[in-house]
């Protein structure tokens, strides 16, 4: 029996249909607008990318291109700092930390249409671990001698076995962009959201949307939204700022505090201060026994009490306020509080007190004579701080430290050198007394700094390449760093590295000064941007950015 619809029902149905059609049209239009009109994002690379081969990346510009074009098995979420699935849907690290197995997504294509499979992962890992490659990405996996074994279980499953345990093994794959074994385009066939479409040496790199990118958004629309990214190679930061102000650029990464304030004065809505970054600036003394500096100075520099007193006499709040216009935090230790998991929250910033510093030095036999500090043998306490010329922030910090130490009778000479000369003194001739430099941390995991903390390593800068640890505390750091690297239990690793941080703060081989804030600028035209402290700050979610209005 047919039932006639009432007028109300008919009206409701008609309205419902109309609303549904309207919603569908709106959805289609929105989707269309985003999918077809994501626009072009423009920003600067500060150096020429040295390579487009993701396995050979060693500079920031190449790393940015790798981030935008490379498909990785797992990705560290720059917001939560947690590991998320990428090309791998799941993964498992063995208890001994030597083996990792990945289950891969299926039906994925490289940008040139070549299918992706476990064979490509095996190929990439074998290429990466070639000892002749000398790549920082590959070296991060090297913890023992021997070959890496790759076992392709099926097209979507692979097991990789390393010769020795690799701490934080799964997180290291965030940097490994998968290459195609079969594509004739080699590294230009990519699995990331964008692909290199054009490169004008010294001038620009054009990235276009990868039509085969596998990710979709919550509404099922294909990512990325952007049509292209235009990367101008521009080493001059003044030019970069001018072009941003003129609307020719959409983003500035790692903005200088001075430029941040200039921009904030005119366009406060475009600047972002994400808080303390992972990067640190530090001062250290030359503790190398064979260095060509007088023995009495070596004795000062090798004394923990002397280093602690110097640290106490430095007003870090002033460094932050005067040099960085408040866009920096007094540093606590080796890791910044921005590193949520690994930072030792028990550590507190060194309080500033020139009186306490002077008293500590007097307790060690130093004495003040006519406003000049002298050691117990009557030598005037005077030393030089070198830093790299052209870095105005380090030059200004050195001058402020010079003022601070003058208050306790120490005379400091500030010398600036160009970078190659400074590196030569630091790593080969050891002809220096103190240095101010910075550490750019890209890794959250302390394993990335093994070569800094192990006494035998090249980058143990205050006293590198020790045949055997020269001090008990360095021996203890060596033991703890090796212990954390050989454990797969995050809790035990954290306990070991917490103790390392405590020893470093007690002994002050590095006098950590400040952690710079992560500053950036994003044009109002860019939608979806949420700058973070982790690199790449502003375009970490490039696949979800778009330029213009939806």
């Amino acid at each position, binding site marked *: 029996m047919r039932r006639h619809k009432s007028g109300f029902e008919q009206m409701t149905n008609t309205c419902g249909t109309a609303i549904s059609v309207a919603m569908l049209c709106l959805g289609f239009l929105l989707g269309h607008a985003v999918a077809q009109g994501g626009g072009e994002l423009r920003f600067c690379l500060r150096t*020429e990318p*040295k*390579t487009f081969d993701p396995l050979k990346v*060693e500079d920031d510009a190449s790393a940015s291109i790798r981030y935008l074009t490379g498909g990785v098995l797992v990705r560290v979420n720059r917001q939560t700092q947690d590991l998320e699935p990428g090309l791998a849907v799941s993964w498992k690290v063995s208890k001994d930390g030597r083996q990792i197995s990945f289950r891969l997504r299926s039906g994925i294509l490289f940008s040139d249409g070549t299918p992706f499979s476990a064979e490509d992962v095996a190929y990439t890992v074998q290429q990466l671990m070639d*000892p002749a490659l*000398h*790549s*920082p*990405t590959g*070296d*991060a996996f*090297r913890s023992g001698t021997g070959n890496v074994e790759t076992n392709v279980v099926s097209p979507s499953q692979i097991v990789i076995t390393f010769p020795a345990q690799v701490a934080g093994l799964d997180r290291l794959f965030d940097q490994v962009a998968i290459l195609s074994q079969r594509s004739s385009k080699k590294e230009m066939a990519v699995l990331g959201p964008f692909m290199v479409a054009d490169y*004008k*040496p*010294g*001038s620009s790199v054009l990235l276009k949307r990868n039509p085969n990118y596998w990710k979709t958004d919550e509404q099922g629309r294909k990512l990325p939204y952007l049509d292209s990214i235009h990367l101008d*190679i*521009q*080493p*001059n930061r*003044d*030019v970069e700022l*001018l072009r941003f102000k*003129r609307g020719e650029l959409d983003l500035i990464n790692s903005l200088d505090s001075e430029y941040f304030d200039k921009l904030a004065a005119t366009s406060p809505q475009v600047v972002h201060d994400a808080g303390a970054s992972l990067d640190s600036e530090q001062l250290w003394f030359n503790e190398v026994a064979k260095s060509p500096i007088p023995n009495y100075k070596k004795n000062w520099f090798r004394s923990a009490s002397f280093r602690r007193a110097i640290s106490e006499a430095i007003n870090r709040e002033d460094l932050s306020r005067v040099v960085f216009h408040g866009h920096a935090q007094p540093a606590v230790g080796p890791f910044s509080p921005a590193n949520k998991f690994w930072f030792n929250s028990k550590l507190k910033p060194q309080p500033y007190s020139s009186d306490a510093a002077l008293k500590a030095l007097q307790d060690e036999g130093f004495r003040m004579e006519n406003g000049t500090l002298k050691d117990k043998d009557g030598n005037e306490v005077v030393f030089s701080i070198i830093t790299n010329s052209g870095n105005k922030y380090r030059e200004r910090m050195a001058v402020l430290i010079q003022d601070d130490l003058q208050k306790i009778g120490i005379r400091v000479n500030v010398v600036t*050198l*160009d*970078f*190659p*000369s*400074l*590196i*030569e003194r630091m*790593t*080969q001739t050891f002809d220096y007394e103190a240095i101010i430099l910075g550490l750019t941390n890209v890794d959250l995991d302390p394993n*990335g*700094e*093994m*070569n*800094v903390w192990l006494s035998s*390593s*090249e*980058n143990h800068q205050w006293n590198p390449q020790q045949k055997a640890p020269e001090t008990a505390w360095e021996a203890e750091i060596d033991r703890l760093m090796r212990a954390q690297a050989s454990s797969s239990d995050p809790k035990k690793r954290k306990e070991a590295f917490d103790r390392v941080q405590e020893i470093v703060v007690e002994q002050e081989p590095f006098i950590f000064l400040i952690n710079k804030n992560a500053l950036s600028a994003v044009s109002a035209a860019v939608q979806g941007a949420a700058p973070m402290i982790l690199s790449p700050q502003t375009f970490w979610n490039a696949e979800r950015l778009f330029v213009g209005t939806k």
Partner: protein
Amino acid sequence: MRSLRWKIAGHVLALVATVLLGGLLSATLVRLAPGFDTDERELDPHLSAESVQALRDARHQDHNVFRFYFSYMKRAMTGDLGTSLALGQPVRTLLRDRAPLTLRLLAIGLALAWLLTLTLALSAAWLRLSVFDTLTTAASGTFLCIPAAVLALLSVFWNAPGALAIALIVFPHTYRYARNLLVKAYSRPHIITARAKGLGEARILFWHVVPVVTPQLLAVAGVSVSMAVGAAIPVEALCGLAGIGQLAWQAALARDLPLLVNITVLVTLVTLLANSSADVIGHVVRSQEV
């Protein structure tokens, strides 16, 4: 004709000798510069000891400057100019990619500089107005006092083309010579007589002034090329222009021996070619006058 051939042969010999010596001097200077043995990448904490050693070994290959230069010359004969240590790319590719921009910049910069020079110098010689002369002299003096880097930065700030900065760097040098030459030529008795007799200015210029000043102006033109090449380094580096000047700046900072030697040889070659060409053309003009 015979003397012209001898002159050209002498220039070619001097050019080859100077280029070879310039390249060797450049290599020696870079080799002796502090920090030659180092590579910024050594500070990357991710690199293993073996990788750091590999970086050092790569630099050690160039330790003996004479051996480096000899092998460089040998390779250069076959067209292989070596590989840049800092950029990791063949020097030949780097120079080929960046040469068009620098050549365009130099051509436009020099054209603008000479247009300005000749316009103002001729006006000064024609008009003989002390106010005009004072103004143009003051303008050229002002640009002479402003460092090239400041002019480059101003061009960035005002969004002006880099070629204009080069023109303004070269102009004050060329203007002083050109003005003096033209004023002197116009004050010659036969030109004063010609003017008094009512000969047209164009005829005086092209028949009586140009032939007299051409050899000297050509010599200044040759020197202005080397000035423009020198100016291209700060202009390209500060304006972010991807030319050979910027490459030279980067190579100097990175102690990039293969790249620096090649750029030195190239710049020496361009400068000498410009000077020698000016000299030979001047010789031809003078011999035609005789």
